[in-house]
């Protein structure tokens, strides 16, 4: 028997699971209109692949995974795409995002499916299959499974703890479809070359654990030959490597890091993930979906949803993704005093703004609430620093300190107290004698910090671009100066040549000293200066006379190349003229 460990903290709320766990899973009827959001999880979106008016088949891909954390989206039934439009999502914000509105034709015609033999396919192909099937974690976070299945690990944990009160969808799934869950687990185990697989099931679900036991015992041993890639696929299913383990019922035993701690004793520290320690964790629903996708080729287009709380007929339903929650709620016959519906459980769920929103891949439970069943919270009272939250925290944080700083909006301090280790399980708020909605403060602080980080990134980008622009302007200025200088030199040389030719032809007397004339005409002060300080001799008068003649000639001949000058060039010409005038003046007086 495996030694079990305990995670710190935790609470034991009343489970309330009996009502919905009693009845078998019922297939929900096909609704007339399905609304499939292209974005199923917080991390990634899908690129839209259909247009309004297009006919789609059941299981046809309508959105392909976008980016590293995206996941594919499929048509849940055959029919007509009525529109691609923004619809409200089941999200705490109540914001809208692009969705495909599909009108079911009732024929449920499947797209052509291509199953794989999981024991005779390359792991990359199996992983691609999981990606194409749009499989995400069905425990609630909806993180794309193909991303999680990338690493090589030691221990694969299949999470059937289902610790949150009221929710029973995993319980019923394990009881009724244990074989497929085990197949899915083995496929995932092979993908990651896991040496052992643990099924963690809370001990308040003995029937589910028994079903898994039976399924593990009855699994045919998979094909023994290992796959080509280094060591992968060498997994053998036998009694030693697959174990179904009952874990003590304690909320939040179904948290990923908590279950890893309970089953393996590994405590994953801040900033690390399971694979860093050779452990990876998948929900039982995810394992089931993997088995369906690989063995049958079916993409993830439906999931089990628990209807619990204020219903006349609570139970579990096999629901197509995109089914309006309104229609689903009607199946459970909510009692008339139902005042709100929560998606998820009472500990971590959020109230839906509107029940017209569709079921998404993360919808594990719809909890109908009434004032009698869930009395509205009494007003919160001041924190008395009793420390009850600290004892309940499963990640050993100091919730009252986090609360204090989150409330004061001192976000730097909240990060010093490791706010981002908080899994928002709600244990602290559950035990708080002052009834402070602690998790709300943590969520507020987290999203503020994330927003600041986004702003910081944007500011850094802007700074970089601003500095580059300045650099570019400097460079352009320098280049322009070089260009102008080259042009001026060229003009100067040309003028000089012309003048030299004229002077050479007209005046033999000064032919011996053409340099001076040239420089005087071109307007270069350096040389002229030497000329002016040169010892006075007879030639000087001659030169001056020749210059005067040359100037007169030049004035008579209009400049040829000044017709279409840019303002800059004109300015330069004017400057040169001015310099020339200055140089000529003293000579004339001399």
């Amino acid at each position, binding site marked *: 028997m495996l030694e079990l460990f305990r995670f710190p903290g935790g609470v034991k709320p009343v489970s309330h699971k009996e009502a919905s766990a009693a009845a078998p899973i019922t297939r929900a009827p096909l609704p007339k209109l399905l609304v499939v959001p292209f974005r199923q999880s917080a991390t990634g979106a899908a690129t839209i692949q259909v247009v309004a008016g297009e006919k789609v088949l059941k299981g046809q891909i309508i959105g392909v995974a976008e980016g590293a954390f995206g996941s594919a989206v499929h048509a849940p039934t055959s029919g007509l795409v009525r529109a691609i439009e923004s619809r409200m999502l089941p999200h705490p914000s109540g914001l809208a995002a692009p969705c495909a509105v599909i009108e079911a034709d009732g024929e449920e015609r499947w797209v052509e499916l291509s199953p794989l033999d999981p024991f005779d396919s390359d792991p990359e192909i199996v992983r691609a299959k999981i990606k194409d099937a749009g499989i995400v974690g069905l425990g609630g976070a909806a993180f794309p499974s193909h991303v999680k299945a990338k690493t090589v690990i030691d221990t694969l944990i299949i999470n059937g703890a289902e610790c949150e009160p009221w929710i029973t969808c995993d319980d019923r799934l394990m009881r009724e479809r244990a074989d497929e869950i085990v197949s899915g687990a083995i496929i995932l185990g092979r993908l990651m070359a896991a040496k052992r697989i643990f099924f963690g099931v809370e001990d308040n679900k003995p029937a589910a654990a028994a079903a898994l036991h039976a399924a593990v015992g009855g699994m045919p041993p998979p094909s023994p030959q290992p796959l080509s890639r280094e060591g992968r696929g060498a997994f053998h299913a036998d009694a030693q490597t697959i174990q179904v383990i009952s874990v003590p019922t304690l909320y939040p035993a179904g948290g990923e890091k908590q279950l890893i701690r309970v089953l393996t004793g590994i405590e994953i520290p801040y900033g690390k993930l399971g694979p860093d320690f050779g452990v990876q964790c998948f929900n039982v629903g995810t394992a089931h979906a993997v088995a369906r996708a690989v063995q049958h080729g079916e993409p993830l287009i439906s999931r089990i949803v628990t209807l619990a709380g204020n219903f006349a007929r609570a139970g579990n339903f096999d629901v197509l993704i995109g089914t309006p929650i309104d229609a689903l709620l009607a199946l459970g016959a909510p009692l008339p005093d139902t005042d709100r519906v929560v998606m998820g459980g009472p500990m971590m769920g959020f109230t839906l703004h509107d029940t017209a929103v569709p079921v998404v891949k993360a919808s594990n439970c719809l909890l109908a609430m009434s004032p009698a069943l869930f009395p509205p919270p*009494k*007003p919160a009272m001041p924190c008395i620093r009793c420390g009850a939250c600290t004892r309940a925290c499963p990640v050993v944080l100091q919730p009252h300190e986090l609360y204090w700083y989150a409330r004061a909006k001192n976000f730097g301090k909240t990060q010093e107290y490791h706010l981002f280790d908080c899994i928002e399980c709600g244990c602290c708020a559950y035990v708080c004698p002052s009834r402070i909605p602690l998790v709300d403060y943590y969520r*507020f602080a987290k999203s503020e910090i994330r927003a600041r980080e986004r702003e910081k990134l944007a500011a850094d980008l802007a700074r970089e671009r601003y500095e580059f622009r300045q650099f570019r302007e400097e460079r352009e200025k320098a280049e322009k100066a070089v260009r102008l200088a080259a042009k001026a030199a060229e003009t100067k040389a040309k003028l000089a040549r012309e003048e030299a030719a004229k002077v050479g032809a007209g005046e033999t007397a000064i032919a011996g000293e053409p340099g001076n004339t040239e420089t005087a005409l071109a307007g270069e002060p350096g040389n002229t200066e030497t000329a002016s300080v040169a010892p006075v001799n007879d030639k000087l008068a001659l030169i001056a006379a020749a210059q005067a003649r040359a100037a007169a000639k030049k004035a008579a001949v209009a400049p040829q190349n000044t017709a279409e000058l840019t303002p800059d060039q004109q300015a330069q010409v004017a400057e040169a003229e001015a310099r020339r005038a200055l140089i000529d003046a003293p000579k004339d007086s001399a």
Partner: protein
Amino acid sequence: MALGAVVLGAALGFAAVKFKVEGDPLVEKIDAILPQTQCGQCGYPGCKPYAQAIASGEADINCCPPGGEEGIRKLADLLGREFKELSGEHGIEKPKSVAVIDEQICIGCTLCIQACPVDAIVGAAKQMHTIIADQCTGCELCLPPCPVDCILMVPLPETLDTWKWKYPVIEIKSAHHA
């Protein structure tokens, strides 16, 4: 006494040379807080010059409307100064917006491209221009040069990526209210 003063003065003079500070790392710290809008509303030609002005004590910390109260608070914190209200003469805090060119009206004059401090406008002479929204800082510097007033400032809508949990509204009530 006088001799003592001379000795101390000489020692200090030596220390001043020995511990001379080169560069100013404070400017970098201030610049990191500023929003990098490069809008020039503070009266300086960009965020860095404003940071330099703050560091040298030339400018006050409350001249940056895009940074808003939050930015002033951070600057006050960094520099150990008192928080001040945003000074009205430099403008008011506005919701974050990006510029959008009405492409029907744009005549392709390139004036806005020259005005943009972060090169977020793409276009060429006599070609329609467009703004890269991700890179636009919302500085509004492209608005005045536009001869046909085809640039609009559009506030950024809230999306699933930018949505934030609100501050919990459940009031802490004293015991006698409960």
